[in-house]
């Protein structure tokens, strides 16, 4: 039998108690703020892309900025060159990338825009385009296919052992399952929310661009890494770092470019030939993601041209080449079957590679030259 007298009304010990109308007003204001802040932010934040712009390395995970960049008016007519660090230019300066040399070959500065992001791989690239690349529609897209990601079960993220990798926020969180990705469900759901709520992505942009990729409160307590540690932000206003000016493309990056010690042929370090455990295309997670990506781009009305490699065959052990070529030809065959134009440029000279897949500055120049001389490429470029 219910004894209603025993049920006591829950007392409040503060006055933060709203009625229905007050809740409606509060939620309305919040909704307005949440919707408008990311929309109006670009109007007050200076963001100069200019020629040869690429997303600065420290902002590689600022996907909101990536989306914003794609919507920039000065990029709207360019052909997008989409891909991982090979397109972004791991060892080269912004004026040493494939997009720069393709623009030069075409005789029109800015004809090709660098839409690569450092640290990507097909599974993440697919996520980037799906969730933050809405502006990539009805455009010409040169999509790079880096077979390095199929060069071993580990690179293909097939292994069962947990692996930490870049851009986990972009890979499929639930399906298809990535065996080596062991994030907690709470973290996965948080990522899904961030992808779908523009406001959260914008907050991520603020953290990336102004607060050293930290939560703003954590930033006030951040250590400088010294021993004993110092706390440089303790007495700073949390609003002070928001300068409303985004960093540019680091044209004098000491880590990259011909003057950098990293910018040298792979063979100069005495690295021997490498054995690759090429995965089967049928079961490859990265290749399947790449396939989905090409479909997605075409569904969005893009005119896609895929460039496969050129992978550094010089680094490859002799007995690996057959399997590599079979894999590369398999990729080309699938693309042809699906009426996606593709080019398979010849391998560059040995000294023009910095590692297995990244060319050096002259390598990019040569690749751009070869592509521009290709009839199919020229036809695609000049097409409607």
């Amino acid at each position, binding site marked *: *039998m*219910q*004894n*209603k007298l*025993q*049920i*006591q*009304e*829950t*007392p*409040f*010990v*503060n*006055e*933060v*108690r*709203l*009625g*229905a109308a*007050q*809740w409606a*007003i*509060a939620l309305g*204001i*919040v909704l307005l*703020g*949440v919707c408008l802040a990311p929309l109006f932010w670009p109007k007050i934040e200076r963001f100069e892309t200019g020629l040869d712009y690429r997303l600065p390395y420290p902002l590689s995970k600022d996907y909101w900025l990536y989306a914003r960049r794609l919507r920039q008016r000065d990029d709207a007519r360019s052909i997008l060159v989409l891909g991982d660090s090979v397109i972004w230019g791991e060892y080269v300066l912004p004026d040493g990338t494939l997009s720069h040399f393709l623009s030069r070959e075409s005789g029109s500065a800015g004809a090709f825009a660098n839409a690569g992001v450092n640290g990507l791989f097909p599974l993440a690239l697919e996520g980037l385009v799906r969730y933050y690349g809405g502006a990539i529609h009805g455009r010409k897209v040169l999509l790079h296919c880096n077979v390095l990601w199929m060069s071993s079960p580990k690179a293909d993220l097939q292994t069962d052992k947990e692996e930490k990798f870049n851009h986990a926020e972009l890979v499929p969180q639930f399906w298809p399952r990535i065996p080596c990705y062991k994030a907690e*469900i*709470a973290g996965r*759901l*948080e990522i*899904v*929310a961030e992808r779908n709520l523009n*406001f*959260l992505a914008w*907050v991520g942009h*603020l953290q990336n661009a102004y607060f050293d990729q930290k*939560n*703003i*409160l*954590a930033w*006030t*307590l951040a250590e400088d890494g010294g021993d*004993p540690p*110092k*706390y440089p*932000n*303790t*007495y700073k206003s*949390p609003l002070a770092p928001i300068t409303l000016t985004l960093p540019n493309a680091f044209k004098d990056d000491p880590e990259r470019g011909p003057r950098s010690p990293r910018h040298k042929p792979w063979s100069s370090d005495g690295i021997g030939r490498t054995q690759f455990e090429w995965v089967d295309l049928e079961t490859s997670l990265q290749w399947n993601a790449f396939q989905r990506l090409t479909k997605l781009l075409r569904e969005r009305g893009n005119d896609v041209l895929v460039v496969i490699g050129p992978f550094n065959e010089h680094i490859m052990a002799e007995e690996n080449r057959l399997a590599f070529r079979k894999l590369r030809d398999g990729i080309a065959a699938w693309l042809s079957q699906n009426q996606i134009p593709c080019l398979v440029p010849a391998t560059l000279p040995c000294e023009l590679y910095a590692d297995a897949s990244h060319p050096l500055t002259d390598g990019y120049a040569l690749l751009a030259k070869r592509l521009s001389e290709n009839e199919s490429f020229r036809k695609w470029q000049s097409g409607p």
Partner: protein
Amino acid sequence: MLFHTWPFLVFLLIVLPVFFVLRKTRFWLPWLLVASYVFYGWWNPYYLLLVFYSTTLDYFIVLLMDHCLREGQKVDLLGRLTRLRFNDRVLKTAYLISALVTVVCLGLVLGGPATLRPMMGWLWLIFLLMAYGALFSSRRAWLVVSVINNLSLLLFFKYANFVTQNMNWILQKGHGALRLPEPATLMPFGFDYVLPVGISFFTFQSLSYSIDFYLGKTHRERSFLRFATFVAFFPQLLAGPIERARHLLPQFYQFPVVRMRDVTDGLSLFVVGLFKKLALANYLSFYVERVYERPAAADAPALMLATFAFAWQIFFDFSGYTDMARGVARLMGFHLMLNFNNPYLATGLGDFWARWHISLSTWFRDYLYIPLGGNKHGAFHTYRNLFLTFLISGIWHGAAWTFVIWGLLHALGVMFTRELERSAWYRESVPNLLKQIGVFIFVCFTWIFFRASSLEEALLIVRRIVGGAWTDPACPPLMLGIVALIWLYQFLYESKWRPLLQNSVVRVSLVVFMILYMCLFSSGGGAFIYFQF
């Protein structure tokens, strides 16, 4: 599952609509139970067995108590022993089963697999007592079974390591060869020895039902489903409030009446709790952890501010959880008890405990302090009872000497302020603000022992606060400013200026501020401190 995480949001978005869809059927209560078990099992499904075990045992113990003879009735012991002549079939069945299981357990203790022996030994004791209870028709014996059962679960999972370490240290000092086995080695079937989340809460809640029934304060719950839902009700399963059967159980008799006011109040409570956890407790925890992780490297101001920050961290963390729990329950039309009432405005330590973790304080008052005699047998007994109650309350919080000291300090503090409050001078001449500050400083001092990882570290912190150098504490003014504003809010709330806070514009602005602040500044993760208790 944590209230402030995305899985909980998904969970709630499934549970709430289905709960309301089922309102006209018999299935809303089973649905609530299933949801509660999923909520708990999300963390570790194996420990659901413990919740289920504790629930089942207390349910049947109260059933058996209900079948025991009333006062004045006599037991035909000889008839029961020799001819199984029971005048109650339930008791007879209980006796037969208990006796049988006692024999089986004894057999397994003597000749069973080594990994099962400790558990069988414990079950043997429980079933022996049950057989005794059935044979003698003793309500008290059944109560003892319930108390032993619940407390032994708690003791084993929470205190066994602490006891073993200390006993083995003593045995070692005595140069004896005897050593107590590590508790992890006593786990059956190779289960991990991990403290089940919220064990102190659900065992106390379940236990309170048996004690209340024994004392005649509540009726026997006939529906197992309802009782199981009462024990496992997900909003308060992991960290309270520790509800009493007479308050929560009647709310499960029929589908609750849910008015718009319940929804808006539930939302208000939840947002305040979420803000306390995400925006405040987590922020304060960064500073507290930084300083308390290396107290030897910190100077007096940093240690003082970290202790101050911890006082607020634990308040925001725990009261935030309770607010969210009450908010979620309220969204479904259920009312959970108040657990925190602005404790840092307390003017005495007794007042502090009437405002801090109220459900636990009243639990100890009702089931320990009063049964010990309360304040009815003179000053000495009153102080002895107070002392014991606070000591046990300290130990309830954790298995370490720091918690024992923390409990002792509160016991001494309560005794001292109780005497102080008896003097007219103190009551009438000392301003309330001074009393509040005094209580807050004392409570902060005790938090040092609560937070420090060892007794040595706690003493080091005290020494460095008293005699350490005065250097820059590197504590962000933003953090201190936020805490100061909230303290000011609480002062205003309990002052004649309260109508200022009741203004609609102020209230709406505060909610808007809290939500936007959480969206912009909050840090995601972090379990609740009180889960470990």
